[in-house]
């Protein structure tokens, strides 16, 4: 059963099977107090994300996408409502939710390998040193950094740094992967490369993923569902679009698919509305 059909059945029947829900946001609210009174960023936001589902979130700048993601990550306190991972409420950050940040956020004084090991050591404390190294090396290999294990992070290009960021996030085997515009700072060529790498690893690991993006094509190419958020304040889910392309996908097959432009038009219509 492909992930796409799970998502499809959920939305078509309007019934949610709790066991299949990985991430549950209900009546989520975020308020920032300001001198002029409270500023409500998010209000009454409900979203359920299934196991092994890849969801992209699209919306205008400042609508609260990043706020929502950092609340899921546990880095930003929740003002109201609930976030649960497999039914357990989120109480703070933890390695069950891996994050790939917009800037690679590597420790510049460490090598690529040490950066990945930082997380691996934390999640697999009982593994031997060489086992942990093997895990880190495996994921660095997966993102195409075979020759750069021992290069200092500061010596790597922005694109290569973000590859290490991807390896670090997957290597800790999180239940949910949170991606905050991970390719936003890259040029379009590098961005395409990294999308391919990301989707290749994801096809293998099938970790539930929530990704924020500004790029409509990226949103369609990667996702099982594209979640559109309304503009803030008081942002909520505006619309959800199911992307029913078969996996594994290739860029070529996606671009040539008859539905591609229908999806694209749907998203752009929403954003320009």
């Amino acid at each position: 059963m492909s992930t796409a059909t799970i998502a499809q059945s959920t939305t078509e029947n309007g019934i949610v099977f709790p066991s299949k829900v990985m991430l549950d946001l209900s009546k989520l609210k975020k308020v920032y107090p300001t001198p002029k009174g409270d500023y409500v960023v998010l209000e009454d936001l409900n979203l359920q994300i299934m196991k092994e589902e890849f969801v992209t979130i699209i919306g205008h700048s400042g609508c609260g996408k990043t706020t929502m993601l950092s609340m899921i990550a546990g880095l930003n306190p929740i003002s109201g409502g609930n976030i649960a991972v497999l039914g357990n409420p989120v109480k703070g950050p933890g390695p069950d939710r891996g994050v790939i940040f917009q800037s690679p956020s590597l420790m510049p004084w460490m090598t690529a390998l040490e950066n990945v090991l930082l997380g691996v050591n934390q999640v697999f404390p009982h593994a031997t040193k060489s086992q942990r190294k093997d895990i880190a090396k495996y994921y660095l290999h997966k993102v195409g950094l075979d020759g750069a294990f021992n290069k200092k992070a500061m010596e790597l290009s922005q694109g290569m740094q973000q590859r290490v960021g991807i390896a670090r996030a997957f290597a800790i085997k999180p239940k949910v992967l949170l991606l905050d515009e991970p390719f936003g700072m890259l040029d379009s060529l590098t961005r395409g490369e990294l999308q391919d790498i990301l989707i290749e690893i994801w096809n293998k690991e099938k970790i539930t993923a929530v990704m924020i993006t500004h790029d409509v094509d990226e949103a369609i190419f990667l996702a099982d569902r594209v979640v559109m958020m309304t503009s803030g304040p008081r942002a909520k889910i505006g619309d959800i679009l199911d992307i029913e392309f078969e996996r594994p996908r290739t860029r070529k097959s996606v671009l040539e698919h008859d539905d591609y432009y229908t999806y694209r038009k749907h998203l752009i219509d929403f954003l320009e509305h």
Partner: protein
Amino acid sequence: MDQEIILKKEGQGLAFLKPLVAKFTSKFQKGDIISSLKKTGITIVSILLFLGLWHLGSKALYNKEAAYKIEKALTEQGQAAADAERACIASGDSSCQPNTLPSPAQVWSSLQSLIADHKVITADKAAFVEKMAETNAKLVAEGKDAIVYTGRASFVDIVLTSIKTVFAGFLLALLIAVPIGIIIGLSPSLRSAFNWFIQVFKPVSPVVWYLLVFMIVKTLYIGDSSDNAFVISFISVGLCAMWATLVNTAMGVSSVDKDYINVAKVLKLGTFQKVFKVILPSSLPLIFTGLRITLSVAWMVLIAIELLAQSQGLGLFVWEEFQNGANDSNAKIIVAMFIIGIIGFLLDRLMLTVQNMVSFNKNEGV
């Protein structure tokens, strides 16, 4: 031999300048050697200009004082005395020379005489050790203290004492300021608790620090006849100089990039790991900036503190020469001034090299 020591020191200085120079010159094309030659040329010209101005200035001062001396002799003792004074000054006799800002040539010859003096003292010392070798061996065999050379210190010994004092003070500052800086950097409440302390004590003058340390050390050493000038001066230097490191360390630790902290949170790193793997490495550049300031402050306050503490270093040397008022005293003071300046410069370069080695964001910053 002493000349060798000084040259060697400069050689080391240039050695750690080399990477910097290479970095600097690598930015130019190979064809741009002319521009670097130009730069060297400009430096040489500016040095010559400086020496020329100094020479003219000291000559003017010399003439002014000479004219005053002759005038005074004329009004107080008459024409004959004035002529005698003029002849005496012209003859270069040391008894009647005006005692004013020395010329570059005088300073240079003073340096030579200090070096010669050092050679004499070194030879004396060696002779003394040889002479006493037998007696000392006997004394040691009897379980008594050996007799050591207690003669006058040479200029090189004085410089070495100063360097030793400044490094001891620097080490003390490092050992106090870095740990405390880290601790108060980690906790905002401790930071505000310590803030008044830092703000109040940071501007206190070296002289007052010396007095404070003197009060305490004097009592601690009570009944002990050994010389505590070194202890007092290096502790005072350390206390004066540590503030830059303390403030910088606290700032570096408290202002770690939020992204790194978020990564540490997501990975749920323990406190120990968070501090040693994330916070400290990322604040190292600022800590070293602080240490660099500390070292230069230490060297600067050292002179005043050695003077007060009667520690056999450059500070005391300068003061004693001033009190001495001998014919070449002023020239010796200027020699000491240059030595102080050059050593200070080399120490700063040394710290800069270390700082560049630990800073990881070379590509982003400066």
